[in-house]
Structures are given as C-alpha cells and as structure tokens.
C-alpha cells in the first residue's frame, strides 16, 4: 500500500540576487502578492502556500493551473527534492519522478553508464542491471549510440533514453510533468503503450498537464493550482468544467470519450 501525504506544505524560493532596495520595490509592485519577506527580511517567492491533501493506492491525481501556479514545484516537493519550509510530507512507496527530459543523467557519461548508475541508485544487483541495460537499449533503439557520451545525442535521443530509463523501473508512485507527453509523433506512438502500462501499474499517479483530455482519461481526481494554493480539488469533470471555457471543456470531453 502506497501513500503520499502533504500536510500544510509551504515552499519559498529565496531571491538572493534581488537584494537591492529599489529592485525590491519594483518587483514587489510588479508581482501580485506572490513575493513576500521571510523572518530575516529576505525577498522570497512563495511558490506553495499551505497546501494539504493526501493520496492513497488507486488515486490518479491531475494538476491543472496556469504557468507558474506551482504545479512543478509541488511535484518536486512530492518527490522529496524540495523540502518545505513549513509542513510535513510523508512518502510511502518507491517514487519515480519524470520531471525533465535529462532525468539527472550525467551528460559526459555514456548512455550505458547512465543506465548503470540509475540501476545502482535503485538498488539493483548486477544481473538486474544488465537486464535493465538490455531493456532500455531495446526500447530506446539507440544501438551503438549507447556507447557514446550522452552530450553527443540529439535532444530527441535524450528524450528517448530518459523515457526508456524512467519507464523501465516500475514505481509505486509515479509523478509526471507534462514534458513526457510532448515527444515526436513517431516515438510517442511507441511510447504511449509503455507509458499507459506504467500508469496502470503504478499505485499512485500524479500528472501535471495542460492537456485536458489526457487528464480526463487518466485521472480520477483533479487539483486546480492557482498562485501556489489549491483553488479547487475534486472530480475531474467538475474541476475542469470550472477551469476551462465551456467550448474547450466540451471539446476535451468529446476527445476523452473518443479515446476511451
């Protein structure tokens, strides 16, 4: 049984380079209340403000909201990367976070070495690592490129390697940012099946996306983020109906029904 609890979580980003008084005032005036000062009067961006919710096995949560609403920051906090300034996060279960295409790969090392490192990080033994290498090589279709440093790859190849690597290890909790849905068409056809298998296999799915029909298809709960706070939390259709203009919502519903 996996679970993920977020209790009264606030995250603030310090702005160390905006110390000058006049710049401070300008920025304050420009930003509508997202900036604040901490106890030591340092300028901070309040990326998340008092966010609480809990997820259990079977939950498929979608995040929606404008750019900069705090969706990616919240995903990073749920992955345990950004530790909050207030509140508590409980992560119970193996987490895979698909947050950016590079996946923390070391660009100077070869594809094969990066796969090996991921295997060691996950705690696999030697035969399992060899199997992982074979599986990723097979799926990413990189063949002899696997022996070259990742920095020599095209961006499409990096996405393929990152995707194959991330989806080769089956997580209990899967956190996905929308980049993963934006590959080139040919690869996405191949990737879709694998991704959907992983989405179904994960006990908890959290997806951040602007794509309403993907959310309608995959999620059974939606949280609308606005200004670092939860604006709405509920059934996908209800929240999306409030979030989207009526004609876009109707369009997304139709698209989701077609796909299903």
């Amino acid at each position, binding site marked *: 049984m*996996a679970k993920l609890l977020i209790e009264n*979580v606030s995250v603030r*980003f310090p702005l160390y380079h905006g110390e000058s008084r006049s710049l401070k005032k300008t920025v304050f005036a420009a930003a509508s209340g997202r900036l604040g000062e901490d106890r030591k009067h340092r300028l901070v961006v309040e990326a998340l403000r008092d966010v609480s919710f809990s997820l259990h*096995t*079977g939950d498929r949560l979608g995040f929606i909201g404008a750019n900069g609403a705090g969706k990616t920051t919240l995903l*990073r906090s749920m*992955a*345990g*990367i*950004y*530790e*909050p*300034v*207030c*509140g*508590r*996060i*409980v*992560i*119970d*279960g*193996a*987490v895979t*976070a698909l*947050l*950016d295409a*590079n*996946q*923390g*790969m*070391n*660009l100077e*090392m070869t594809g094969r*070495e990066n796969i*090996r*490192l991921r*295997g*060691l*990080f*996950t*705690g*696999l033994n030697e035969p*399992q690592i060899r*199997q*992982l290498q*074979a*599986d990723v090589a097979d799926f990413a279709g990189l063949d002899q490129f696997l022996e070259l440093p990742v920095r020599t790859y095209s961006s499409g190849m990096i996405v393929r390697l990152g995707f194959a690597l991330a*989806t*080769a*290890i*089956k*997580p*209990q*909790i899967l956190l996905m940012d929308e980049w993963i849905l934006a590959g080139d068409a040919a690869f996405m056809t191949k990737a879709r*099946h*694998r991704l959907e*298998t*992983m989405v*179904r296999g994960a*006990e908890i799915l959290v997806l951040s996306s602007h794509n309403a029909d993907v959310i309608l298809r995959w999620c059974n709960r939606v949280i609308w983020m606005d200004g670092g706070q939860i604006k709405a939390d509920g059934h996908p259709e209800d929240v999306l109906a409030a979030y989207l203009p009526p004609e876009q919502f109707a369009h997304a519903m139709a698209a989701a029904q077609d796909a299903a």
Partner: protein
Amino acid sequence: MIAPEQGQAAVEVSHTASVPGRAVTIMASRGWRGRLTLAAADLSETLRLWPLVWTLSMLDIRLRYRGSLLGPFWLTLSTAVMVGAIGFLYSRLFHQNISAYLPFLSISLVLWNFISTVTSDGCLCFTQAEGMIRAMRMPLSLHAARAVLRNILVLAHNIVVIAVVFAVFHTQPSLASFSLLPAAALWVVDATALTLLLGAFGTRFRDIPPIVASVVQIAFYITPIMWNPAMLAHRGLSMVLVTWNPFYALLEIMRGPLLGGPLDAAAWTAALGYSAALVLLAGAVFARTRARIAYWV
C-alpha cells in the same frame, strides 16, 4: 489499484524491476533535533548507496582521461615529474641532502595535492551535481562522498611515486608506522567533513570557491611542505607556523612515522583537536543547510 492488463502489457513489463519503497517523512523542522535526525538519515542512506558512490567516482576518473593513451597513469606520471623537478632544484636551494629531502618532499607534495583538490572539489560538489539533485531525491552527502572517494583514488595513484622514491633512497619507515592506519582514517573523516562544509558554503555563496583556492595557495607556502621546519628553526618565525598550523599537525601524523620518526604525541593531539572541531562544525552546517541545498544549486 488498477491491475496491469494481461497479455501484451505483461510481456512488455516482464523485464522491469519493481523496487519496494521505504517510507520517508520530511518534516519542515526548525529544531536541531529534527535537523540532526534528517542529516544522520542522509549520511546512512549514502552508506547504503555505497556501490553507486564507488561507480560514480571511478567513472569521474575514467572520464577525465577518456581517450588518453596513458589514462589515469598521467596522475602518477605528472606527480613523479613534479616531485623530481622540485626535489632536485630545492635540495640545491636549501642545501639539503637529496636522499633525505626527496622522500620528505614526495610525501608532502602528494598529501598536499590531496588536501588541495579536496578543498577545491569540495566547494563545487553540490553545484556540479545540480542535474541529479533537482531530478530525484537522493542523499546530498552522496555528492560529497563521491568527491572524497574520487580524490582518494587519485591519491592511490600518487602513492606509487612515494613508494618508488622510498625504494630508490632506501628510506626506512619507523615502527610507529602502525599509526598510519588510524591517521588515514582520520584523513578520510576530515576530508568528508571539509567537503560537506565547503560544499554547503560554496553552493550558497558563489564567491567561496575562489576565496578557498587563494587561502589554500597561501597555506601551501606557510605550511612546512617544501621546507622542513628544522631548516628554519633558527629563525624563530617558523615555530608559529608549525605550532598553530592544523595542516602541519595532519601532515606530520602521516609524514613523521614514514620518514622514520617516532610517534609524535603533540602532533596527534593537535590533529585530533582540529579534526573534532572540523567535524562538529561541518555536522552543524550540514544539518542546518541540508534541506536548502536543493534550492541553492
């Protein structure tokens, strides 16, 4: 839970590894108790991921010499050239007997090289791992351990130079050499503490790396590395540099026994004292800054 579909899907996931997760609780704690608990958990997680640290350090070294003919043996060779060149020149300048000076110099330079690269790599250990830090939750001390282990591997290549110099000049280590083992352990502890300390500061304040580099440069000249304290004893000045110099104490617990000296109780006391202070400081700074490093990189 929605069960994965049978058939095609099951075939595709058959290779995939499923890893049991462990519960992690992240508390935003301002109390020292909570901070120290999380910092200790971070360190023990690094120990658990030891194979990863080892592989990362090995790859770092291999990467540096990828495509070169001699590979990591350039480390040994360049140190040998340095020790040889400086040894012959300075033994003349200081009017020293080369068979006594060269063994002294080889140990000093090799050990100092370690200190110097540990400090410079230490400042950058988190900033260089930015991609990893922001992609997944990973113990932060892992990046420090990687930098330390990488430098230990470099040191291992350079020890060959010391061994050759000792063989050529028939230098006899003393019986006190048994103390080299605890001394080496103390060096590893200090190097880790220093890397964590400088890493945290170097990530928050980007001016720290050049400042540390120039301090280490000065320390190289005022510490008895190229010169033996005995050479300057008659001028009075050197005693300050020797008595109150943490680098000297740490160098001496290694160098003394190897060059046939007795167990130096004063050097050991000083070395243990300075190390305890360093470890406490590094522990406090790491516990205080650990949660913020991901925001700073």
